């Protein structure tokens, strides 16, 4: 692949090579090189601000202090030269967010990776899983997400919604592949922590042991910081431990992955509530210099209907689920009503079933169509016997002897309000009805408990009652104070919390180093360039996304055993082979255009290239039409489409999908490759008057034909 050289990406390459080698023996020099790498990566990915170049210059001056170490001196000299000679290019990357050489855009990650809020290099790990290299897959995932097993079981998988394979049939089952690999690597004892950087001697306090806080703690510990995690509960995991029920996420999964942080030296203080037992001042006195608030959203919205405050048997879903998670397995009642239509409501309803409720009804104001809960979760809940009551608006909780006895509801109808095409539920007058109940669980949303932070008077809050933080760096209005996870976004997802925790860790590190913060969100990093696996076009087209095997419904109704049983090894490897390797093929469409418009052949039916209007795709069609001229491969900007001779065949492949393979015809005199018959026919057709047909019995290459012609000419002359 021939690229114009871009000095920015060249400098980045120099730094990466230096960091991968062992010439950086001095910790401070290594640290400077790491900082330079961070800053130049910002430049390459258009997220640098005005101060970046200045800081790069001064770090280079510092690096030159190590002149006595030849490899460092060389590196500093090369970088300084590049900055001096190509200053304008660096400036244009920052100011116009554009790489004039067009090189840096080739660092663009696959759509799945771009979508992942944690920025995991999905195609690389999916490919490693296809090859059976689970430990490497896990090592790669953990560079961006320290909790592959947790996410393999509960991630909301936005990546799958963007997965390009979904434009052909169904997305790659990215989440379950990750779960399989994590389990395998842990069971093989090959799931390990990477080495830690030398101790920085600096202390960071993380408040909240949910995914956001734990992620930040992990990356900060790896960078050599002393991290203390302060958690009010007796366990780590946050909502993954006390919200998400055990039948979706077994406790061992969280414990094993949190254990990896303990192994790195992260110091956990459980049963410790920030704001009462511990404050910013007390932590500052102990030498803590940076703070991350990742306290989640643990208080609930109330229904605001009569009976809610006064009657026994009314619970909020998060309180109910927390109690169950912490070991209270008493049934909430025989007739349980859960109010809400989201995932939390479904979790509460399914938990109530498992605790022995006879009837569990989920009351939702809108229709099934508007339900925000995951369709698969809803289906599983129905299989377990949860009854869904749609268009049901609760208006009052009825009681008997201070205990809940029924829920009074009104039927609703969906109506379009003026100026909006959003359908809203409007109660129908006189449509009252009652649902018998001895427990009511409200699951209509959570919010942040801000009381513990009221002493930090400069901390800004949004009108949604979330902590105001810059999304790019998670910096709050108070210097040295960062925030991440649900406390910033409002109730969101595990993987968003992980992404926020990671960005916060990076920003905290820059804060300590005194280097500028980026101005744009990070462009996820390609972590590997794994070779693709060959797969015939027919297999690539016909392999289907597998169904997840489930625990029997009977057992699901009475135990907290994991419902999704996981893929088998064979299924996992096959599923991973459905991936199209969008990290290599950028879907620019050049190959399709060249084949159709320039060669007039139209052998590539790759409708999935188009994001907005995907057309039909069939890799198998290529074999019918393609003449193996190689024009597509010659014009591919990223080496995604390749034509090569292997043994007696010429093969055209796209990221490993074998599009066409044809036997080669060889010269009868010298055995040199002449080409596949189809290509020779094609050439002959185009040059009918001058070329020889390979259908002749005497098949020879042009060189041999010329040589023979020259010989017979010479013989003729000699004879004369």
């Amino acid at each position, binding site marked *: 692949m021939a690229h114009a050289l871009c000095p920015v990406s060249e400098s980045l390459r120099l730094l990466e090579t230096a960091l991968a080698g062992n010439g950086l023996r001095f910790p401070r020099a290594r640290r400077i090189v790491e900082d330079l790498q961070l800053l130049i990566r910002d430049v390459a990915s258009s997220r640098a601000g005005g101060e970046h170049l200045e800081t790069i210059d001064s770090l280079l001056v510092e690096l030159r202090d190590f002149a006595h170490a030849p490899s460092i001196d060389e590196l500093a000299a090369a970088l300084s030269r590049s900055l001096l000679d190509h200053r304008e290019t660096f400036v244009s990357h920052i100011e116009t967010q554009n790489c004039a050489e067009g090189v840096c855009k080739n660092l663009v990650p696959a759509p799945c990776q*771009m979508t992942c809020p944690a920025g995991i290099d999905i195609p690389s790990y999916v490919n490693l899983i296809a090859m059976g290299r689970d430990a490497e897959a896990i090592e790669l995932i953990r560079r961006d997400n320290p909790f592959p097993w947790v996410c393999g079981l509960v991630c909301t998988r936005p990546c799958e*919604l963007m997965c390009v394979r979904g434009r052909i049939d169904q997305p790659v089952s990215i989440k379950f592949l990750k779960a399989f690999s994590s389990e395998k690597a842990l069971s093989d004892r090959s799931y390990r922590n990477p080495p830690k950087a030398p101790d920085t001697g600096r202390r960071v306090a993380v408040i909240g042991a949910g995914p956001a806080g734990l992620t930040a703690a992990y990356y900060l510990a790896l960078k050599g910081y002393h991290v203390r995690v302060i958690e009010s509960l007796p366990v780590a995991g946050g909502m993954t431990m006390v919200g998400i029920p055990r039948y979706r996420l077994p406790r061992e999964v969280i414990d094993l992955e949190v254990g990896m942080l303990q192994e790195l030296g992260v110091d956990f203080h459980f049963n410790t509530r920030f704001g009462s037992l511990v404050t910013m001042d007390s932590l500052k006195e102990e030498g803590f210099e940076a703070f991350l608030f990742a306290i989640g959203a643990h208080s609930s919205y109330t229904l605001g209907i009569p009976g809610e405050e006064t009657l026994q048997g009314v619970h909020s879903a998060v309180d109910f689920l927390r109690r169950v998670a912490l070991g209270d397995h008493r049934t909430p009642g025989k007739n349980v009503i859960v109010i809400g239509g*989201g*995932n939390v409501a479904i979790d509460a309803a399914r938990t109530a079933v498992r605790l022995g409720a006879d009837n569990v009804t989920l009351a939702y104001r809108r229709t099934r*169509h508007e339900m925000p809960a995951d369709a698969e979760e809803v289906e599983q809940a129905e299989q377990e016997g949860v009854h869904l009551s749609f268009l049901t608006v609760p208006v009052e909780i009825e009681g008997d002897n201070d205990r809940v006895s029924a829920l009074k509801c009104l039927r609703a109808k969906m109506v379009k309000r003026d100026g*909006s095409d959003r359908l809203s539920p409007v109660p129908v007058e006189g449509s009252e009805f009652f649902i018998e109940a001895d427990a009511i669980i409200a699951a209509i949303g959570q919010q942040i408990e801000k009381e513990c932070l009221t002493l930090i008077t400069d901390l800004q809050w949004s009108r949604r009652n979330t902590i105001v933080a810059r999304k790019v760096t998670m910096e709050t209005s108070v210097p040295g104070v960062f925030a991440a996870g649900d406390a910033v976004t409002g109730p969101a997802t595990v993987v*968003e919390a992980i992404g926020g925790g990671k960005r916060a860790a990076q920003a905290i590190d820059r804060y300590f180093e005194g280097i500028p913060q980026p101005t744009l969100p990070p462009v996820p990093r390609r972590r590997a360039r794994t070779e693709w696996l060959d797969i015939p076009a027919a297999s690539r087209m016909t392999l289907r996304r597998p169904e997840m095997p489930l625990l029997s419904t009977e057992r699901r109704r009475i135990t907290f055993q994991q419902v999704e049983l996981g893929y088998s090894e064979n299924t996992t490897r096959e599923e991973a082979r459905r991936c199209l390797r969008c990290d290599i093929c950028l879907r620019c469409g050049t190959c399709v255009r060249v084949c159709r418009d320039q060669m007039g052949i139209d052998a590539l039916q790759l409708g999935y290239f188009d994001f*907005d209007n995907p057309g039909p795709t069939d890799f198998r069609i290529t074999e019918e039409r393609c003449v193996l001229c190689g024009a597509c491969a010659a014009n591919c900007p990223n080496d995604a489409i390749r034509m090569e001779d292997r043994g007696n065949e010429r093969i055209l492949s796209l990221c490993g999908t074998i599009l066409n393979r044809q036997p080669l015809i060889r010269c009868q005199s010298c055995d040199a490759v002449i080409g596949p018959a189809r290509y020779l026919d094609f050439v002959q057709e185009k040059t009918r008057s001058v070329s020889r047909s390979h259908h002749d019995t005497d098949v020879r290459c042009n060189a041999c034909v010329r040589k023979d012609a020259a010989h017979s000419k010479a013989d003729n002359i000699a004879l004369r």
Partner: protein
Amino acid sequence: MSQFRKGQRIEVYRKSDDESWEPYMNTYIGCHGIVTDPDTVINDPDAVIEVSLDGHGTHRLPQDCLRPVP
């Protein structure tokens, strides 16, 4: 304003008036994407929802800057 559903195609068609809009988000105007998490619990038109923008990553954006792509 539209009600957004998971998997729906959307366009960021304008700057939002909401306080959660940050200046860097201006670069997303005109981008197309998919709704990946439409306010998990309460169907609140005021909630910030998770969208993934083609080539520009995943973000929580206020709904007033989004419209469905047919």
